[in-house]
């Protein structure tokens, strides 16, 4: 490594350390605590105020007849078949329940002779088996399988290290693949969708049988169901109502009800309501106002800091980096930790609301502070300072008359109230001092010192002014006050001279 390269690296490291130290300096200021507190409280308030509703989708299809209505209920894990009777009695409905036990196995069963792996086991009622062409039903340990050529065959099934002798009965593959338990819902579990078309498990991996057989295979004592279809419903019922009733008791994932020309789906996916988003936006506005106000009051300090680091040789972007780093550390970092807490304790919908609040607050605050501490442009408009000295040359040679007239002009200036006016004439010279309060702004005014000197044919009126204020008087205000005071004297004397 060359000596020059080492020097460059050292200089850059020194700047990085400088930026880091500068960031620490700002972070240690007491207002940072308020920024952190405002962020945390707004994010939590936004999360707490979240109202959400289950996602409702309506599919329109004129071919659907809603009389009588049919309902599909899906669960994330097998539930007791009593769920249907509980639902019907709980919502005072009547209908016919059809149960389906459809599971995708984590560890497949193996058909030893056929050398096939079974990933899906379907347990259905007798009426469904009849619909699939198995009118005679299935005896104990008999399973419908579409991938055998003969009517029935015996095979050994390896499950959990045990061998089970089973009878495979041929089932029509076309009937099985196209059998629907509900509107566009095949009996074979759906793995995914290509466009709108469902992709199901290949039939070579599917076994279907009676409820009893499948329950024996699953080694459970009571009948369970993963899907329930309720047909011949006594009336239309809102799927949201059904979902809300069931979700308190069972792990329901979807409820769908057919209507006249449409199907309504309610899923477990929850989305924040518009009210709740308004609340999130308001929380972010509140946080932004507080943070921006704090930043606004600290701008003079930050600007002073910026000017100091410029003198130390830092680039203009150093301050931008420092300020973005500051907002990241004081707003984003505690905000993300709070967001994690909101996610764990309140769920995804609340987190979305809180995220809206956090992002909005951070963005507005960062943009504001970066713009406020941005260095001024090197090329600016040339500023013309107001004239604080004015020499008026007049042809009036009577020094006393001229002085008295100037005093009169001072006292009658409508923009000022004369706090004190003192004057003295000695020979060809006169001195006037006036302190005038500006009427349009409390606590500010102008101090005038005027020398009148007559020399031969001409008189010279030298006006000096100093604008004062109990507060800092802006440049524009100073210029206005100065102009209003001097112009009255200059204009008044010129007009008087011309008319006298």
């Amino acid at each position, binding site marked *: 490594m060359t000596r020059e390269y080492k020097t460059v690296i050292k200089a850059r490291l020194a700047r990085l350390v400088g930026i880091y130290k500068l960031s620490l300096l700002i972070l240690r200021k007491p207002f940072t605590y308020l920024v952190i507190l405002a962020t945390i409280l707004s994010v939590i308030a936004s999360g*707490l105020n979240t109202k959400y509703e289950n996602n409702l989708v309506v599919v329109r299809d004129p071919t659907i007849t809603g009389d009588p209505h049919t309902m599909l209920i899906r669960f994330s894990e097998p539930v007791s078949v009593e769920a249907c009777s509980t639902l019907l009695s709980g919502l005072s409905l009547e209908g016919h329940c059809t149960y389906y036990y459809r599971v995708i196995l984590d560890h497949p069963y193996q058909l030893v002779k056929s050398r096939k792996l079974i990933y899906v086991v379907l347990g259905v009622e007798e009426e469904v088996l009849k619909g699939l062409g198995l009118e005679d039903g299935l005896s104990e340990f008999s399973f419908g399988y579409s991938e055998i050529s003969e009517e029935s065959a015996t095979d050994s099934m390896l499950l959990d290290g045990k061998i089970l002798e089973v009878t495979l009965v041929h089932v029509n593959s076309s009937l099985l693949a196209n059998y629907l338990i509900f509107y566009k819902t095949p009996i074979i579990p759906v793995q995914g969708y290509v466009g709108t078309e469902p992709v199901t498990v290949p039939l070579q991996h599917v076994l279907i049988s009676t409820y009893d057989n499948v329950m024996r295979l699953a080694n459970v004592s009571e009948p369970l169901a993963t899907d329930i279809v309720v047909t011949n419903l006594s009336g239309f019922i809102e799927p949201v109502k059904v979902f809300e009733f069931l979700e308190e008791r069972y792990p329901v994932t979807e409820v769908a009800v057919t209507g006249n020309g449409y199907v309504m789906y309610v899923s477990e996916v929850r989305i924040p309501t518009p009210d709740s988003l308004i609340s999130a936006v*308001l929380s972010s506005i*509140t946080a932004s*106002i*507080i943070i921006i*106000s704090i930043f606004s*009051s600290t701008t003079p300090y930050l600007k002073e800091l910026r000017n100091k680091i410029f003198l130390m040789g830092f680039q203009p972007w150093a301050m931008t980096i420092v300020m973005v780093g500051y907002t990241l550390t004081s707003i984003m970092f505690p905000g993300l930790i709070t967001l994690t807490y909101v996610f764990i304790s309140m769920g995804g919908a609340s987190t979305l609301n809180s995220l809206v609040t956090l992002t909005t607050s951070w963005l507005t605050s960062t943009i504001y502070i970066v713009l406020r501490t941005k260095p001024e442009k090197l090329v600016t408009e040339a500023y013309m300072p107001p004239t604080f000295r004015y020499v008026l040359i007049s042809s009036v040679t009577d020094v006393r008359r001229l002085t008295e007239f100037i005093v009169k002009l001072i006292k009658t200036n409508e923009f000022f109230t004369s706090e004190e006016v003192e004057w003295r004439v000695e020979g060809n010279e006169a001195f006037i001092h006036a302190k005038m309060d500006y009427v349009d702004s409390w606590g500010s005014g102008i101090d005038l010192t005027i020398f009148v000197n007559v020399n031969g044919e001409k008189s010279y009126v030298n006006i000096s002014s100093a604008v004062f204020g*109990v507060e800092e008087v802006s440049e524009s205000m100073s210029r206005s006050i100065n102009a209003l005071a001097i112009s009255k004297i200059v204009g008044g004397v010129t007009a008087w001279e011309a008319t006298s």
Partner: protein
Amino acid sequence: MGSNILMIFVKVVTRGSGLKVSAVVSINLLVILLFRNNALTPYLTMLLSMVASAAIIIIDFRLHSLLLYVLYVYGSRPNTVRILISLYSLLIASILSLPYLAIDLMSFSSALTSTFLIALSTLSLIYKNVRGGTSITF
């Protein structure tokens, strides 16, 4: 002198950012409280109001310092200064507590409003003492 001091107070109140910030925060909190669906929301917004009230002290720091100086120049007595600052703090606290007073009429317990007012007043008291102890030397 009394009218001058009153004029100074009115100018500080109208020219400072504190009043505007507290009014905007207050309106926001009112709407948040109207849309609330959690029992903890009022308490959280109360804390947020307290943060806002503390922020206002920082925001108008220079203006307040100037006020103290001007009052001193006018020959005000320390108690007059303290009363004026307390009046200002009370004004800010009242504006920030307006959402709670408005909501209280509908559903909240008066205890919550009282707690809120006390909390804000305490904060104002701290502010008053800090200003009184450090900036004014009579």
